[in-house]
Every structure is written in structure tokens, then in C-alpha cells.
């Protein structure tokens, strides 16, 4: 029993020991996450050493005349070079003390950064063109200037002016411009030349700058070459620095150039002439050029709205589309080729078109990407473009015309697959219907008649009809209650007819008809009073209708005669006709009286 217990304890101890050993063995491989470690050499590879600008070294100054010996009236240069200071660090005096016999021009100043292998060192230079007016030995005394707040001594410089000396002129730059009479904004090409030395040694130029107000230089157009060029009638090699300048102010302007002759530092220069290049470290010499006058004229008035500053003699070829059948949203490229000589070409700005999105391609490409936004467009938008032609001082309209296009839309599906109903039956496929062959049922408008006033107004018609019927029925009932009104109305109507017949008979002279119609008329006029048929009346009935005076008077006599004639109308016709003619006025009066009583 004791052995068993001891064995269990031993087993537990062994398990614990194995666990500790396993844990210790696995510990190195179970490290926590750490930040990526960059070794020193890797960090050094990432760091790019930047040269420092050396401003701690002592400033050294040189001042000298170039050339040190000159003839009277011959230009010489008084050049001061301050090595170790930038142009901005030097507080150059406004005037310096000079001998009266030396005529100093305005100062020209410039600077560059010399590269000394592991550092840059600034070099400022000041240059005066001097014309000696008399012979002699002249000295420009030394003077102090402040450099970075510290006084620095400019040493004295001497020049010997000897009338017998006629050496070569001092080295200077030559400036040539392509045009001296230009319009505002019309670019011109400027060439700065540094001819090779008599030993055919050529030097590069650095820090070329132009002096003159109202010009903007385009550094992207710089071209540096060493080639043969004609100077004073001779073909000599020269370093040429070319650039495009754009006048931005009108009026006459003096333009000059300045640069440092930089020895063999030909960076980006094309050399086509046979020249020798000086070896050794470069010796930087500050130079300037002769000034050139450029006259800048303003653009004439009346600029078109589409003029964007393009100047030159242009022609545009017919515009071309990459395709003329496009879908909505599909880009199409519109290309135009420009021909001619142009000083400045600015592609036209895309116009605002609601149905097109117009994206100009990168200048100087003369092309556009057009994207139709609707399938209703039928042509590309015209792109307004005008240029100025300096050769005839006029504006030229070169608007890019519209081109016809067919734009379609991406159609929606016109058929759907069959729908499976309840997993068994398959319904018919859904399809878009066919065109309707005729307009079909139409309407006066989409606004329903319920919202229009017309139908309500139309209801007046049945209301009026019912009111009319009601009124008619009321009137009818009234007439039924008063039959004499109907009889009188009928009598008046028939009486008018008989009187017309009577007039006709009188016109014809028909005695029998006169008698018959006169008697009838009297009966008709008297009948309503008796509520009897007119033919049932006799003479006495008519006479009773008259008042007493009339009955015994002429009216009554007329009535009797008429009725007597009617009773004997078949006898003594001629005599009766004569009597009737005499009775006519009385007959009319009787009928009028009878009619008045109706």
C-alpha cells in the first residue's frame, strides 16, 4: 500500500517536471507581438543624405575690373563677388564712391549655389558697366558692406585706362529676341548667347535671368544647346539658352539677360559644334547682356467672347469623332488638328451643354471627350473658339462646328423568363406588348371631368327641362280651367286667316268671295262669346255682339248687308260688287271692333 502511494506521488512529480520542461522549451517560440524592427543599415538605406548649405565658412570677397586695362570709352565691368553669402544676405549700398572719370551704370546682381561635393555654398555677385571718360590709373577704394549683419570689407580695385589700348571687349552675353514689336500676350522667343573664347573654349551658363518689367518666362520651353551661330558675320560656336517669354504689360520695355558663366557644367545641353571644354573646377563669372527694347502693343478692341488668348495664324481641320453611333453615357472623342504658325495656342474651354458632359483632354492636345447624357441629342455641341491673328491684327472665329451623332439608350429587357408557379405549373413568359396600331379611345384631357366645372353646368339642362315641363303642365291646367281663352286664341288665329283671304278676294274683285269671307270673319269674331261653332251663327248673333249704337248705326247696316248678300250671293252680282266696294271701309271698321272684343 505504501508502495502504491509512493508511486502515485512519483508520477505526479514526473508530470510536473515534464510540464515545466515543455514550457521552458516552448517559451522562445511564444513571443508576444512586437513592433517591426528596423536595423541600422536598413535605416541608413532609407535616409538620403542631403548636402548642407555652407554659411559658416568665412566670407571671401573679390573685386576687380574686367578687363583691368581698357581704352577710353571702352566698356569695362566692375565685378564684386562675395563667396559665402547669398544675394539677400548682402546689404549693398545704393551708391559707391568711384572716381569721377569712370561712368558707372546701374548695378546688376545675381547669385548661385556652388556645389562643393558635400555642401552648397552661396555666391553673390554685383556687376557695374563702367565707361572710362579719361585716361589714367583709377582705383575704386575699398568699402564696407554688411553681410548677414557683419561688416565685410570690399577690397579696392584698379583699372588702367590707356588711350593706346584697343583690346578685345570684355566678355558679355548676347540677347536676341524673335520679335521686338509684339501684341500683349503674344509670346516671343529669347536667345541668350555666350560665344566661345578665341581659344574655342566654351562655357555653360547657369542661373540665367531676364531683367525687364512685364515679361513672364516659361521654364518648360527652355532649350540649351552649343551650336554654330552667326555673330558679327562670322560663324562661331556659342552656348545658347533659349526660352519663351510672354509680355504681360503693354508699352516699350527694356529686356536684358544675366547669368553666371559656369565652366563645364553642361546639364541638359545639346552640343552640336566642335568646341573644347575647359577642365578643372568651374570659375563662376557673373555676366549680363546688352538691353533690347521690346514694344508691346495692346490687343485691339472687340474681342469675341470665345477668345481665350490664342495668338497666331491658325487653321483648324474638320473635327473628327471616334464614332457617331453611341449610347448614353458612352464617351466619344472629338479631335481637331491645328495647322499654321501659332505663338500661343490655348485649347478652347468646353461649353456648358445640358445634354453633354465635355472633358477637355490634356493640353496641348486639341481634343475633347464628349459623353452624351440623353438620347435626345442629335449633334455634338459647337465649341466656340476664336484666335487673334497678329499678321493682320484681327480676330478669327474658329468655332468647332457640331457633328451629327446618333445616341441610343440602353434598353430595358423586353422579355422575362417563364415564372414557375407552385413548383409545378409554368406560366407563360412575360413579354412587352406590341405597338398599338391606332390611337384608340381618346379623352379631352387627362384632368377628369369631375374636376372641371363644365359637367356641373351641364346639369342645368335637365333642371331647365323639368322646370319647363312643370310650367307647361301648369299652363295647360290653367287653359283647361279657362276654355274661353283657348277659343279666343283660336278665333284670333282663324280670323287673321279669313281677313287675309278677304284682302285677297278684294284685290281680285271677287264679290262672292268677299261676301263669304267677310261673313265668316264676322262669325268667327263673334263665336267665342257664344261658345259655339262659327258656322252656327247668323246675322243677329253678330249684331248682338255690337253695342246699341253700332247695331243701329253704320256698323249694323254693314253687317246686315253682308249677311244679306251672303244669303243672296247668287243674284244681282254686278250691283252687289258696286255696293261692296262702297262698304269696304265700314266692313274693316266692323271687323276691327269685333276683333278688339276677342
Amino acid at each position, binding site marked *: 500500500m505504501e508502495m502504491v502511494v509512493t508511486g502515485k506521488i512519483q508520477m505526479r512529480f514526473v508530470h510536473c517536471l515534464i510540464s515545466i520542461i515543455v514550457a521552458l522549451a516552448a517559451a522562445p517560440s511564444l513571443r508576444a507581438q512586437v513592433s517591426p524592427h528596423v536595423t541600422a543599415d536598413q535605416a541608413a538605406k532609407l535616409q538620403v543624405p542631403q548636402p548642407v548649405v555652407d554659411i559658416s565658412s568665412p566670407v571671401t570677397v573679390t573685386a576687380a575690373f574686367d578687363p583691368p586695362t581698357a581704352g577710353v570709352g571702352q566698356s569695362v565691368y566692375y565685378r564684386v563677388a562675395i563667396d559665402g553669402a547669398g544675394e539677400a544676405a548682402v546689404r549693398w549700398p545704393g551708391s559707391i564712391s568711384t572716381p569721377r572719370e569712370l561712368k558707372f551704370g546701374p548695378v546688376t546682381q545675381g547669385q548661385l549655389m556652388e556645389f562643393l561635393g558635400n555642401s552648397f555654398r552661396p555666391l553673390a555677385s554685383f556687376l557695374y558697366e563702367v565707361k572710362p571718360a579719361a585716361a589714367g590709373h583709377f582705383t575704386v577704394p575699398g568699402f564696407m558692406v554688411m553681410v548677414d549683419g557683419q561688416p565685410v570689407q570690399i577690397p579696392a580695385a584698379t583699372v588702367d585706362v590707356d588711350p593706346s589700348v584697343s583690346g578685345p571687349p570684355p566678355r558679355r552675353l548676347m540677347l536676341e529676341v524673335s520679335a521686338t514689336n509684339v501684341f500683349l500676350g503674344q509670346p516671343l522667343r529669347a536667345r541668350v548667347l555666350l560665344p566661345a573664347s578665341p581659344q574655342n573654349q566654351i562655357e555653360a551658363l547657369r542661373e540665367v535671368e531676364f531683367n525687364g518689367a512685364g515679361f513672364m518666362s516659361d521654364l518648360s520651353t527652355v532649350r540649351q544647346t552649343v551650336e554654330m551661330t552667326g555673330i558679327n558675320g562670322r560663324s562661331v560656336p556659342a552656348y545658347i539658352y533659349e526660352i519663351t517669354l510672354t509680355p504681360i504689360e503693354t508699352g516699350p520695355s527694356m529686356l536684358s539677360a544675366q547669368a553666371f558663366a559656369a565652366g563645364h557644367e553642361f546639364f541638359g545641353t545639346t552640343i552640336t559644334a566642335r568646341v573644347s571644354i575647359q577642365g578643372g573646377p568651374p570659375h563662376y563669372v557673373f555676366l549680363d547682356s546688352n538691353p533690347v527694347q521690346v514694344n508691346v502693343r495692346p490687343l485691339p478692341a472687340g474681342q469675341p467672347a470665345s477668345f481665350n488668348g490664342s495668338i497666331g495664324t491658325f487653321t483648324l481641320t474638320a473635327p473628327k469623332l471616334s464614332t457617331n453611333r453611341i449610347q448614353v453615357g458612352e464617351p466619344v472623342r472629338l479631335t481637331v488638328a491645328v495647322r499654321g504658325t501659332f505663338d500661343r495656342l490655348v485649347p478652347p474651354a468646353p461649353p456648358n451643354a445640358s445634354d453633354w458632359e465635355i472633358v477637355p483632354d490634356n493640353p496641348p492636345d486639341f481634343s475633347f471627350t464628349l459623353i452624351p447624357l440623353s438620347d435626345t441629342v442629335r449633334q455634338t455641341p459647337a465649341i466656340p473658339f476664336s484666335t487673334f491673328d497678329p499678321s493682320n491684327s484681327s480676330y478669327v472665329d474658329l468655332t468647332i462646328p457640331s457633328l451629327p451623332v446618333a445616341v441610343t439608350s440602353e434598353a430595358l429587357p423586353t422579355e422575362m423568363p417563364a415564372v414557375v408557379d407552385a413548383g409545378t405549373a409554368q406560366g407563360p413568359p412575360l413579354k412587352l406588348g406590341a*405597338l398599338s396600331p391606332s390611337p384608340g379611345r*381618346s379623352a379631352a384631357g387627362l384632368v377628369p371631368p369631375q374636376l372641371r366645372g363644365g359637367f356641373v353646368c351641364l346639369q342645368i339642362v*335637365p333642371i331647365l327641362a323639368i322646370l319647363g315641363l312643370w310650367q307647361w303642365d301648369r299652363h295647360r291646367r290653367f287653359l283647361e280651367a279657362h276654355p274661353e281663352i283657348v277659343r279666343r286664341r283660336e278665333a284670333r288665329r282663324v280670323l287673321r286667316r279669313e281677313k287675309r283671304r278677304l284682302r285677297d278676294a278684294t284685290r281680285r274683285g271677287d264679290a262672292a268671295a268677299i261676301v263669304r269671307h267677310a261673313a265668316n270673319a264676322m262669325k268667327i269674331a263673334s263665336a267665342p262669346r257664344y261658345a259655339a261653332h262659327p258656322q252656327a251663327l247668323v246675322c243677329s248673333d253678330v249684331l248682338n255682339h255690337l253695342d246699341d249704337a253700332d247695331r243701329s248705326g253704320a256698323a249694323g247696316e254693314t253687317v246686315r248687308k253682308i249677311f244679306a248678300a251672303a244669303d243672296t250671293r247668287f243674284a244681282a252680282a254686278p250691283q252687289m260688287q258696286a255696293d261692296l266696294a262702297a262698304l269696304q271701309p265700314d266692313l274693316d271698321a266692323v271687323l276691327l271692333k269685333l276683333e278688339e272684343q276677342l
Partner: protein
Amino acid sequence: MRTDLPNEAARQRRPTSKKMSAAIVRIAVLIFEVGRRCRAASFGGNIAKIAVLISLAVLAFSLANVRTATNDWFADGVAEYRTGQFADAAEAFENAAVVRPAAGTFVNLGLAEWQRGHAGPAILSWERARWIDPFDKSARENLNFARQVTQLDEPQLKWFETLSIWLPPAAWLWLAGASLWLAVGMILLPPVVRRQKAGWHQSLAACGLCVFLFSLAANWGVVSRTNLGFVLENNAPLLLTPTRDGEMISTLTPGESAREIRTLGDFYLIRTESQTGWVKREQFGLVSRE
């Protein structure tokens, strides 16, 4: 390529023909008056009859002219559609619909818009076709198809609106008018014409009143449906305020139905199935608004 009348010119055509018709009617009345006076002066009574005949002939000619113009646009649209010029076809059908709204014209306009990829205008056109002619099978089938493709539901209608779909809007109005006056007539006319009120008189009056009440509900449904509209443009924004830079609540699907609540400037306040907001006028079309 079409270079003739644009849409706006077609819109101006209908008022012109209306003015022309009014002028013709005035001339006819004038001629009739002259004829009547001539008749009174014993110059003869046939002048008035001739004047009326001439007037009617001119009026019929002008109406036929309008109809011919409609048919011209319609025929142009059919021809353009068959050549695949769907944009031109849609323009022609739209002009035909402006001159004379017709169910077939709207069906074809919907087809042209569908072929152009404009689901919203297509659904609106077919709804307009059904508005004019609820029995138009082609419009109904096209709407079913379009809603299957776009996964859109039909607009939710109230019972009286569903009732109003059974007949064209004008038919409900005429039915209401006719049934009302039939009932009134059956009640009022027998005594007027001195007839004993019979049982069938009363039956007709009762039927008329029933139909009238029934059609009143349908007419109310027609009026209620006039604020029903459909989204026209894809991803039309539903705005919180009726301003150009208003905050967007959501975007709408073309062909989605909504109810116009009111109008403010260039915006409609609409209520969709789930939300309310403002939408630009050009992005939403009402069925019953030209």
C-alpha cells in the same frame, strides 16, 4: 432625322384649333342671324339653312384637321419606333398625346420610353393609358411586365378607388348624371304627363338612386386617384425640405408610386409607401396632370 415641330409647337396647336373653332362658331352664328333677318324681310328662308350647313361643314373640317394632326404624329411615332429611333418615336407620341390624349398613344409612348431605358416614364404612360381606357389590355399587360422587371408593386388603392377603375372617369360622371335624372324624372314626370304612377316608375327611380349612390363612390375614387403619381427619374432624391440643397431622406426608384400631398414651387410633397418628402417636379409625374 426630324427637324419639324418640336414639342412646344405641338402644345400650341390645340389652343390654336380651339380659337379657330370658336371663330368658326361665331361666323356661323353671324351667318345664321343674317339669314334669319333675311327671312324676316321675306328674302327667303333657305339662306339660314345654307348658313348653318356651311358652318357645320367648316366646324367638322376643323375638327377633322385636329384629328389629322394627331394621326400624323401618331403615324410618325410608329414609323420611328419601327426603325429603332425610340427617342424620336417618344417625342412624336408625346406630341400626339398633347394634341389628343388617347390610350393607344400612351401605350406606344410607354413602349418607346421603355426601349429608351426610361422605366419611370414608361410606367406613367401606361398608367395614363389605363386612366383613359381601363379596358386597354395592352396597357395592363405592359404594366404587369414592367412591374415584374422592376420589382415594383402596384399602387395601393382604397376600395372606392378600385371601384373607379372599372370605368373611365368620364363614364362614371355620365352614369351619375343619368341615374340621378332618371330617378328624378321617374318621380316627377308621371304627374306632369298625367300618367298614373306605376310600379315600374318607382322601380326605375329606386334603381336610378342606387346607381347614383354607387357612382358617387366611384366618382370620389376618380377624384382621389388624381393625386397618384410615379417617380420618373432613376435615384430621384426624396428631400426633407423643398430646396435645391435639401437634406436627402432617401432615393426613389423609377416607376415607384406615390401620392401628391401638395405643391410648392418646383417641388411636390409626396407620400410613398413608407415615407414623406419633397421631390422635384421633373422627377415625378401625376397620372391625371398634363
